């Protein structure tokens, strides 16, 4: 447990509405100078500054409580806005959470009718764990070493890893994403825009990563992350009220500063031996590029219609140099490489055609065709001369690499007719065909029928409902695709397996009185994998919600909703270690999943007290997932001990009070409460109780270790955050 306290006082300058979530949600006032400044073109400077203090107390998992944000106690400056607008120019600069890990800055400049420019710098932290520990020392970027004496002692059988876990060093497992982005829209003529976007994203830190030497020697390392993605998107766009033409080029490069990662084997010092390497090696994420040229054209057609066409041609490449098969010196030389670099390449061709027509008032017809071809052109990588599994064992017989090209064509047509004022009934049909290489089906075809009713436009009543039926079937079963990897011939991969899907969705709102509105929604879905005898067999989902908004007058606004969801799935496996067992149906076992979710959200705005605005919001979300094993009658498999349910519960509440000291100055006080509970059999504290596995049982000797992990786990937390702020706006 870590607990942090700090005290701050606050000056509150200028809380601009709509700030980021690290800031209490400011309550817009009708006299807000920033809102006025934004809506007028007076040439006067407007702005706001929010200055205050935050006190944060976190019991439990501090990292999860601040997973993507920085709530440290201290003085903070937030919602800094300075802007000026005339009829010719607009300028606005904004800053959030200045100096904190989640800080963000933005500058917008608009030369009206000529140039629109926007610049952004944003930091997104990802704090994975504050409790992780490791025995590894990163001696240089990407090289993780253990104490030699520890490896030697363990190798000699004089100790187990449990003897050393006390020496593990705690560290923060986290990454930081830094995004710089510039967007420019230059209007060369009233109808012509030149659009340029440059975006650079750098990500640094460490993430948990498997680095295993075999079934009984699993290792987890803090994988270093240090890479950069640079995107350039350009387009030339011409349009008028008859049509549009857009031509563009998009390019993206991914550069990783690390080529490889090396780590010691905790169970062996050396010398290397077949089956017992002293170290292992991963490649790091490969440098790659993705480029596209694309063009879009649209033209208005008779019957108040529009034809739109889009075509794009792209290429993805990765030509990273390949590492040797292994770093294990026992395989000297290692099996030869079929080639020295990846030479991985994909060619993409995409085309869309849309015709939208309105032949009569209250009647429309849309037709779309989409073609997509992802053609992997990577040469087959021949491994017939051997490979090395886990850096440990030589595999002399290997099948060549297989690449998964996919070609899709989709045609859909939909017609809608108004059957009553504001009410339309729509029917739609879609045919989706897919061709695959090296999948269990050569092709799949899916027929989709949809019927919907949408009643909108009436401000007192809204209803949307849709029924959808999908039937997907495969052709050209590739039995070899399963057999060559030892899969059951009755297994079907659920992403392309034959499937019947029905889904009904409904959402409605109704104004009961001028101040009360109620809403309800429902979604019911059934997926049945009709031909699958193993793998995922069925998946059902049911989602419902009810809610109400009550606003008797400008002084009060109450909204609340409650939702409940339940999910279930059935899947079947067959425990088999050889072909004979694979043919034995009594070895079947099943996993029945059920998931239940309840959530409640409420918000209450009170403006009944002069100069005072109060906002109270809260939400609660609870999920309970169970996985129940089952055996068939006469099963030779030992009766399993069922796993405990996985439970997650999050309760959040926020209270924000703002008092208007003057037109320009407001005093704010806010309190946030965040409470998270979790029970997880795989990642919970009861299981991940240390870094060496299996753990030592009371009264027993340390077992033979089969894993050295980082101790990343799901833990509960309770966070209290208090804010005092002054907002000054001008």
């Amino acid at each position, binding site marked *: 447990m870590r607990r942090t306290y700090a005290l701050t006082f606050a000056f509150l300058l200028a809380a601009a509405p709509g700030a980021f979530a690290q800031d209490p949600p400011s309550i817009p006032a009708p006299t807000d100078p920033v809102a006025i400044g934004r809506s007028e073109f007076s040439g006067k400077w407007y702005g706001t500054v929010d200055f205050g203090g935050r006190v944060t107390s976190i019991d439990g998992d501090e990292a999860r409580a601040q997973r993507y944000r920085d709530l440290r106690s201290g003085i903070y400056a937030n919602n800094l806005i300075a802007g000026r607008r005339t009829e010719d120019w607009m300028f606005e600069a904004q800053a959030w959470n200045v100096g904190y890990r989640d800080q963000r800055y933005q500058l917008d400049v608009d030369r009206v009718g000529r140039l629109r420019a926007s610049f952004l710098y944003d930091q997104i932290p990802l704090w994975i764990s504050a409790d992780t520990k490791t025995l590894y020392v990163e001696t240089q970027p990407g090289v993780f070493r253990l104490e030699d004496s520890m490896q030697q002692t363990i190798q000699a059988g004089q100790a187990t890893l449990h003897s050393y876990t006390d020496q593990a060093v705690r560290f923060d497992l986290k990454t930081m994403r830094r995004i710089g982005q510039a967007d420019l829209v230059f209007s060369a003529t009233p109808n012509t825009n030149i659009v340029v976007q440059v975006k650079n994203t750098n990500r640094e830190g460490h993430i948990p990563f498997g680095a295993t030497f075999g079934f009984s020697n699993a290792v987890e390392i803090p994988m270093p992350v240090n890479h950069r993605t640079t995107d350039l998107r350009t387009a030339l766009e011409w349009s008028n009220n008859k049509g549009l033409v857009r031509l563009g080029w998009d390019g993206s490069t991914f550069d990783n500063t690390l080529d490889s990662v090396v780590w010691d084997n905790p169970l062996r010092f050396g010398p290397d031996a077949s089956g017992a390497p002293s170290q292992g090696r991963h*490649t790091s994420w490969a440098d790659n590029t993705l480029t596209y040229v694309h063009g879009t054209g649209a033209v208005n057609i008779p019957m108040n219609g529009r034809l739109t066409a889009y075509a794009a041609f792209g290429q993805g490449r990765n030509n990273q140099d390949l590492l040797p098969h292994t770093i294990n010196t026992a395989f000297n030389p290692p099996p030869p490489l079929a080639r020295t670099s990846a030479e991985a390449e994909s060619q993409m061709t995409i085309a869309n055609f849309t015709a939208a027509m309105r032949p009569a008032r209250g009647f429309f017809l*849309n037709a779309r065709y989409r073609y997509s071809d992802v053609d992997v052109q990577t040469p087959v990588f021949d491994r017939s001369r051997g490979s090395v599994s886990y850096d440990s064992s030589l595999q002399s017989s290997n099948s060549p690499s297989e690449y998964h090209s996919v070609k899709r064509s989709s045609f859909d047509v939909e017609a809608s007719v108004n059957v009553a004022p504001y009410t339309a009934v729509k029917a739609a049909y879609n045919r989706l065909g897919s061709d695959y290489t090296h999948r269990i089906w050569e092709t799949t075809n899916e027929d989709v029928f949809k019927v919907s009713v949408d009643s909108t436009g009436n401000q007192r009543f809204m209803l949307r409902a849709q029924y959808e039926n999908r039937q997907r079937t495969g052709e050209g079963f590739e039995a070899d695709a399963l057999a060559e990897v030892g899969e059951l011939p009755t297994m079907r991969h659920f992403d392309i397996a034959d499937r019947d899907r029905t889904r009904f969705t409904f959402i409605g709102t109704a104004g009961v009185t001028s101040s009360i509105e109620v809403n309800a929604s429902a979604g019911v879905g059934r997926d049945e994998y009709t031909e699958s005898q193993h793998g995922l067999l069925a998946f059902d989902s049911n989602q419902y919600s009810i809610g109400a908004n009550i606003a008797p007058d400008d002084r009060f606004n109450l909204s609340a909703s409650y939702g409940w969801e339940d999910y279930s799935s059935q899947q079947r496996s067959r425990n088999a270690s050889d072909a004979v067992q694979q043919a034995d149906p009594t070895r079947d076992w099943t996993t029945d999943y059920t998931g239940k979710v309840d959530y409640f959200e409420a918000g209450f705005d009170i403006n009944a007290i002069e100069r005072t605005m109060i906002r109270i919001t809260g939400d609660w979300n609870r999920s309970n997932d169970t996985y129940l094993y089952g055996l068939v009658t006469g099963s030779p498999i030992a009766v399993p001990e069922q796993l405990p349910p996985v439970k997650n519960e999050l309760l959040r509440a926020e209270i924000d009070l703002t008092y208007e000291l003057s037109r320009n100055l407001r005093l704010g006080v806010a309190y946030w409460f965040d409470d998270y509970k979790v029970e997880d059999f795989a990642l919970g504290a009861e299981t991940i109780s240390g870094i060496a596995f299996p753990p030592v049982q009371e009264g027993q000797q340390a077992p033979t270790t089969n894993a050295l992990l980082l101790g990343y786990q799901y833990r509960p937390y309770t966070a209290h955050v208090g804010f005092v702020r002054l907002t000054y706006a001008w």
Partner: protein
Amino acid sequence: MKNARTPAAGQGCETCHGPGEAHANDPEKIKPKQFNKISAKEVSATCTTCHNKGVHALWKGSQHEARNVACISCHSIHKPMSTTAQLKAINQQATCITCHRDKVAKLDKSGHMPVREGKMECTSCHNPHGTTNVRLLKTGNSVNEACSSCHAEKRGPWLFEHAGINGESCATCHDPHGSSNDRMLVAKLPFLCQRCHNHTKHPSTIYDNKVVQSSNRLFSRSCVTCHSAIHGSNHPSGSTFLRQ
């Protein structure tokens, strides 16, 4: 405003609501256009008179347009609640939840994108006005390309590919709106993997509560404790994704 490209510069309210003089001359016969009393299509036709480029260019024929969503379903011209985009609700989440309640509810799950923290919003991934990609995704030409615009390390192409990834959908295994499972997986491991893998080695084994602390196929990050390069491998011995 002086922006001569916008009709509003010269015509003011009449730009959207129609000729005021005609209404003044014959108030009974000529009514100003009242957007809450006309069809969604007529509303959109008015707005796209000007908003016909950039992110709005593909509105006609888009999924939202086809469901009778009007511009004023989400936007308010005269009384917006949001600071940007003139939304009827205070922000994008509050706007989109009107119809997509199940998606927004998922943001409160333990595995989620940083939306509730304010670092992303619905339009970080989607353009609700129409796109050339599927599912109104605003970047790329497939679900995967949209995801890998931020997660480019998983983009490939790879020396060894995991089936169902290249050119297909990350959403086969991940729920981008949120999940109670680690890494926003649609099901917990090893059950998710066992939905497709059932062969003669360990994937077809029951991992029950007896082995919860001793089997690296169940505890911690389960299958990816070993198969860590599950998205694809560039290692010459990475065919089963044990080495990245």
